[in-house]
């Protein structure tokens, strides 16, 4: 399963790095506490969060996360998009809540 399929199936808005959407996704993690995400997410996860500030890009990059999905239509901060572009980490937005986004992606992957 790659990010592009997830974007299509969930109707996500892509805020950054459409060129990296071919990236493989093997699982996912939901969280707004950065220490929790840094400890428990896995490489190639898609990360579902409500945090919009640029530090989410540093966490995603350190953990080799495939992409970040912001929920409830949350717009990423300008610095977040700029930093994500530098790191090549796609940032996507869904109008749905975290529970629904996770459920749909789980069904697609497993």
């Amino acid at each position, binding site marked *: 399963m790659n990010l592009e399929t997830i974007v299509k199936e969930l109707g996500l808005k892509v805020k950054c790095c459409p060129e990296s959407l071919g990236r493989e996704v093997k699982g996912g993690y939901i969280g707004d*506490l950065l*220490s*929790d995400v840094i*400890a428990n997410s896995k490489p190639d996860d898609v990360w579902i969060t409500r*945090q919009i*500030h640029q530090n989410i890009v540093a*966490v995603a990059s*350190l953990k080799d996360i495939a992409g970040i999905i912001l929920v409830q239509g949350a717009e990423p901060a300008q610095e977040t998009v700029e930093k994500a572009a530098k790191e090549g980490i796609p940032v996507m937005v869904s109008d749905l809540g975290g529970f629904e986004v996770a459920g749909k992606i789980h069904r697609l992957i497993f």
Partner: protein
Amino acid sequence: MPEENRFEDSFAVEGGNFRAAGNVSGKIKRILKSIGINDNVVRRVAIVTYEAEINIVSYARKGQIVVSVRPDLVQVEAIDEGPGIEDIELAMQEGWSTATPQVREMGFGAGMGLGNMKKYSDAFHIDSKPGVGTCVKMQVFNLEKMLQPDYWLKI
């Protein structure tokens, strides 16, 4: 001992600068990858370095992170000038934090940082003087190297 995978460097971390938070850990991760350190070690060093960096940014005036690489282990030392920790045992408890509401709003300050550093390193030591600063020393072992039967004979 062979000279492979040896490296030492020190990186400055600015207190209060959340825009740059994570830059030093990112740099260290890239260096370790580029010199061929194994993925498991790189992943754990990235976690403990990031947490140490975030603590300096969140609480201290300034600090530095010193990383030393040997074939059998990576050592990370985070030394800061800041308020220090009054009660280390209490600070180690998950959920305990003195972070400001602004820091918590960003998803930091959940009281998990020191715990993560201890959990993801193989050796962990913390030293702190209230009013002066804190030093956290951590080692992540490269067990693949350590368990090679002839490794210790080469030292």
